[in-house]
């Protein structure tokens, strides 16, 4: 575990979820030792099932060594004064506890295969990866920082869509992130998204599909409308592979489908194609926050 990660997690942090040392593969039923599973990129060694990944595990899997978070001090309020069975604050607090995250996305600077990058990683464990104002603001800060520092930008998406409890303020994050992506793109930056399971709704219909290169993790479900909404509309079951990464590849929506183990080397190659010797690779350092 890299130093920044153990610092972030605390060396005695309990395993996520329920604290158990073992877990069962939901696809093949194999009982797996959590440590082995983590060492295997959270991919079932028996059947290849891709477990959903914690944002920091994802970052740790992707970056060369260091990771410097930005936007972490941007924290959610309750702009609509939302409350149903629980108040929105209570929901946020419970998710904070469960996920060990302060919001649905972690953003920052890192190096990847020697390339300094601006990196954002969404996490389905926090409010289903929904995009509220904090997710929008953190990503916007990331896109702006990438533009200002002329860094390539990579975002891993995982999202159930817009966050209901923040109403229209959540929906407007589609506009806000698109505006920031446009500025970054018009400045000539390289922007790559990696769509992981699931990527739907407002995230799918904004920055996820505005990248120069769109990678999807194998077997991820990706779409605009949710499967249930469509099934209710057409009143019949959808085919098994509908809205999977592989289906979208055939339909021409995405550039490539990559198994999780191959994501880091693939991103390294993409950065190399896009940037080449324009960027220093040797002794590349994570940009400092106040540089």
């Amino acid at each position: 575990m890299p130093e920044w990660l153990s610092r972030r997690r605390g060396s005695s942090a309990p395993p996520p979820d329920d604290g158990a040392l073992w877990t069962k593969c939901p696809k093949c039923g194999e009982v797996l030792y959590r440590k082995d599973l983590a060492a295997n990129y959270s991919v079932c060694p028996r059947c290849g099932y891709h477990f959903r990944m914690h944002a920091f595990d994802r970052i740790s899997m992707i970056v060369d060594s260091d990771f410097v978070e930005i936007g972490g001090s941007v924290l959610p309020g309750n702009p609509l004064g939302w409350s149903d069975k629980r108040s929105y604050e209570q929901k946020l607090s419970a998710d904070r506890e469960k996920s060990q995250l302060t919001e649905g996305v972690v953003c920052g600077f890192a190096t990847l295969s020697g390339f300094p990058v601006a990196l954002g990683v969404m996490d389905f464990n926090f409010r289903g990866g929904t995009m509220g104002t904090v997710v929008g603001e953190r990503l916007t800060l990331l896109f702006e920082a990438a533009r200002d520092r002329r860094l390539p930008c990579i975002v891993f998406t995982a999202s159930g869509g817009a966050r209901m409890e923040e109403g229209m303020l959540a929906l407007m994050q589609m506009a806000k992130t698109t505006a920031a992506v446009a500025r970054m793109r018009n400045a000539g930056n390289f922007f790559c998204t990696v769509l992981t399971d699931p990527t739907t709704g407002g995230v799918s219909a904004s920055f996820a599909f505005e990248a120069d290169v769109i990678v999807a993790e194998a077997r991820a479900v990706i779409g605009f409308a949710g499967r249930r909404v469509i099934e209710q509309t057409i009143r019949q079951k959808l085919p098994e592979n509908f809205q999977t990464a592989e289906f979208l590849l055939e339909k021409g929506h995405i550039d490539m489908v990559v198994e999780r183990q191959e994501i880091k080397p693939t991103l390294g190659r993409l950065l190399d194609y896009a940037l080449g010797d324009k960027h220093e690779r040797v002794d590349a350092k994570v940009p400092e926050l106040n540089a």
Partner: protein
Amino acid sequence: MNLIVEREKGLLELEKRIHELRAMSANQPIDLSSEIRALEAKYAEIQRDIFGSMSAWQKVHMARHPSRPTSLDYISQLTAFDELHGDRQFRDDPAIIGGFGKLFGRRIIAIGQQRGRDTKENLLRNFGMVTPEGYRKVARLIELGAHLALPVVTFVDTKGADPGIASEERAQSEAIASCLMALVDARVPVVSAIIGEGGSGGALALALADYVVMLEHSTYSVASPEGCAAILWGDAGKAEEAAARLKLTSEDLRGFGIVDEIVPEPIGGAHRDPATLIERTLRVVDAALARLSGESVEELLEARYRKYRRIGAWQSDTMNAVTARA
């Protein structure tokens, strides 16, 4: 069943009676003026009762009222309009009407989401739910406007983007994202009018604008109340509760800085006096274009960026609840 339509029934009945009495009074030597006045007072009282302070849920139904003016009703009141069709690739989506127009003589690109005004038209226009081809037509027309230096006016009225299998197969996400990108990059003023239902990302795809105008009783929401209730509580029946929480009224959105100006509706809603309401709305849009056309392209794009950049509400270690309008 539309709540407003139901509540209107009694009023319309009463209206008819008053008309009959007036006609009788005019043709016959009976003085009914005090009786008529009494009925008129009653009528006004009921009207105030129904429409004086509508709940969010009532506004949802008002926004969906079958007689509420649609995009075509506004577009047909332009000085001139010539429709342009198609995405140049796959299909012309009838849920989008777009083309060249003149707004009080001002040359514009006008684009609207069009639901049906009867069952047959609803089938043709897919109930105003836009498919990827429709959004690609929108993006194309926005780029045409930018090429010819024509400002863009959009009319927003949709339950949401089409959620069908075919739309997913043809990349609905990418199509909506393309629209958003076209609007962000458009080097001409963009003004949007939310005239009916503003349903989720499918509405925003036409409403990312320099100036957003919203009819008093229109709604604009992150999800339909039914959808929101289903998502959060697994029960679409709790839509009324969701409507109350979602802050989807024009007043709410003006407060958040998402809507810039509210167009007041006649008592009883836009459909009770469409001509006046449409004229009023078009005047508001035109005034916004007049102001925006004074800005340089760089000022325009910078202001557009800042407008959306600051929408949000969050806390930080050093600040509390920085809201959009701060």
